[in-house]
């Protein structure tokens, strides 16, 4: 199988003397056509990893290749072959959905004769075609998320990064996005890299997952392999076993203080 994303001791440190290790010597391989999930607690380094792989920020040390392009030397090529749905991206609220997608398409050099039809098709797919000329400031959070997903697809890249793709969506829209990701992987042959906290989605969509904590990759494999390794029954239990959690008896400790209930 062809490796399309390969990281080699990829690291990103912050602060004086690099005491904050956002990503620490990450070694990872993602194969062509695979849907890969990166899991981890808040602040584990998932978004930093995605930003590094999309050449948004530069690594402190190590490197990576995306579709055989070096993230340090071939930034423009890397950007052309990837689509990114960022965790908290900014939208141009004063543009209409059509104008925003037109802008994004132009940024990625989508030819004009293709762009118009593609925008229409994407808007139809997300059920927003009849609102194409409304300004984005009037869209709900879910609708904005759909537009952002559409913008990540606008140049039809072979590799897609989705950072929390369903976090703001209602169950129906989330299901649609889930199905879309499945089809992008199964039918269109895209390589998909997902970061998410929603474990059932990761469990259902991802061929393999990686669990990251404090910047270090601490588990890697298929979902059932990770469950088996941790001798647990579900991915949730496996995730807690690997990353740690609050013990049940500690949960109501705050009430034990005198007068706390008054």
């Amino acid at each position: 199988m062809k490796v399309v994303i390969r990281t080699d001791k990829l690291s990103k440190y912050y602060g004086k003397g690099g005491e904050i290790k956002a990503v620490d010597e990450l070694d990872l391989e993602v194969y062509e056509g695979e849907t890969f999930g990166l899991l981890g607690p808040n602040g584990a380094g998932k978004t930093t990893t995605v930003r590094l792989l999309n050449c948004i920020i530069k690594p402190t040390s190590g490197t990576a290749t995306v579709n055989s392009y070096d993230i340090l030397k071939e930034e423009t090529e890397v950007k052309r072959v990837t689509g990114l749905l960022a965790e908290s991206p900014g939208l141009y609220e004063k543009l209409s959905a059509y104008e925003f997608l037109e802008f994004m398409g132009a940024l990625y050099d989508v030819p004009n004769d293709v762009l118009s039809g593609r925008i229409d098709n994407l808007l139809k797919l997300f059920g927003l075609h009849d609102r194409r000329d409304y300004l984005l400031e009037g869209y709900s959070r879910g609708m904005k998320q759909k537009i952002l997903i559409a913008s990540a697809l606008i140049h039809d890249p072979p590799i897609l990064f989705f950072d929390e793709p369903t976090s703001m969506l209602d169950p129906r829209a989330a299901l649609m996005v889930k199905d879309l990701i499945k089809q992008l992987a199964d039918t269109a042959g895209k390589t998909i890299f997902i970061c998410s906290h929603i474990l059932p989605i990761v469990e259902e969509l991802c061929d393999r997952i990686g669990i990251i904590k404090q910047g270090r990759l601490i588990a890697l494999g298929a979902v059932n392999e990770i469950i088996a390794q941790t001798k647990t029954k579900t991915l949730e239990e496996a995730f807690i076993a690997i990353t740690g959690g609050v013990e049940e008896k500690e949960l109501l400790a705050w009430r034990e203080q005198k007068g706390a209930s008054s």
Partner: protein
Amino acid sequence: MPVRKWLVVAKNEYRLHTSSIRRIRPYFLYMVIVLLAVYVAFIAPAVVSPFIDDFLAFIITQAAVPMVQIILFMLFFYLIVFPISETLREVQTGQLEIFLAAPIKPSDVLLGEFLGVMPFYAIAITVITGSFTALLTPLGLDMVQIATIIIIFVITLLSAFWIGIVIAAILRTKLGKTARGKDVGRALAVVIVLPMIAVMYAILGGGLVEALVDPGTSGMVRAIFGVLPSSWGAEVFVSFASNPGNIGAVGFETLTRFGGLIAFFVAVLWLGAKAANRAYSLEPTTFIASRAKPDGVFYKTVRYLGGGRSFGTLLVSVFKDYSRRLENLSWVAYAVGLVAMLGIFFSDPSSGAEDPLVSLSELGIPLLAGFVVGTVSRGKTSFFMYMKSPSGVGKFVKARLFQGWLVTVPIAAVLVAVSTILVPQITLTSLVIFTIWGSLRTMAAVAFLLGLALVIPVFSEESRERTLGIVINLMIAVFATIGLDVGFSRLGLSFESILPNLDPLTGLLSDHLLQTAIFSFVGIVLLYLGKRKLSRIE
């Protein structure tokens, strides 16, 4: 061939700025061009014609060169500050990720952002240049001279605008990544205009023009401003005005100044493009999160003043939320700066205590109160906490009133005391009485403006809308004060006219105390209405 990326960004920027006029967008540029042509050809000459004689007399004086230098510097400074202030008001870096993930060079983004808003700045540049050209036309300048002056204005103002855009982009990326940085940005956006206001006040009321007629002062100002690129055009401007139709007489001077300006423009363009990489980055600037210190003497005193107990705690919380936002503190600094400048440039303490007193009561104190309590309705969601808790809205209004008094009264007392000390032969008793009066007046103004801000709430988190809300409330307060003053004097309702034996200053003070009582009453009514309104928001 793919479209040039800077053009894509420019088109997007233009669309964003014309979003509110989308229906007329296709004709907008043509309409603007026609209107500007009408302005330059007809309106500007008509507007400047009444001043032509004064201008012709002025242009041959000592003051001409430094005055044009100052005007050009102000325009230059304004065009630098405006994009910075606009950016800092709402520092947003969300869109940065879009650009950084796309195959586009930072310099293309910068150029695109510059060109996208260029049409709007071009309007300002054309109006300014058109007005100055209209002033010079009656002198009989030849076409080369007029064209040179137009180019000088355009290059000077474009350079300033480019510098402003570059600085704004760098500040946005530096400040936009942390909540503290955004707060610093909003605070800077408020106070950054103060130097310009100072120069404006100095020209209007500070006798700057008269001072520049003096050769010594004029020479000094000329030398200081002469080193700034904004001034290089001023000498050319005045030398053309002194030698109309005879460019040869000032050929060398024109060439050096004009050439210098062109070189400066090219240099700032090049440096800006080089700085673009710094302007677009998502690398965190700091990982140091702001930490709250344990309450010191100040907050312990505030808690005590709030009666201790739960209201004291609430008052301290409201006070902390207010004072930890640098934007709020910069509004206070802005108000104090304005009041100080009004005092320096427009007030004359030697004419007695009346002048500073009236100026403070009609403008200074409402300004201070308005800027401190004007943003009370900011962020609708936080009100629901108060609505949910027992008697929460009442507690909130009371806490904000106390907090407003705690911030404004000491500042107003100092301002009144300083203004009074400057009055010749003022007695200590008068000083104390005036200071107490100032404090009472401030308390009334805070109640009035807080009530007004609750009755006409601006829930928006957008700085521009909040500022507009503050300005509207301030206008109401200022006009109400002036109206009350004028109304009293028209109706002969002054203590001095009722009690003829009363000395004028005591009379004036008594009038002001009566007005303060009326304002307090209206303020209480507004606070009640505001509280009712706040309890019913959905």
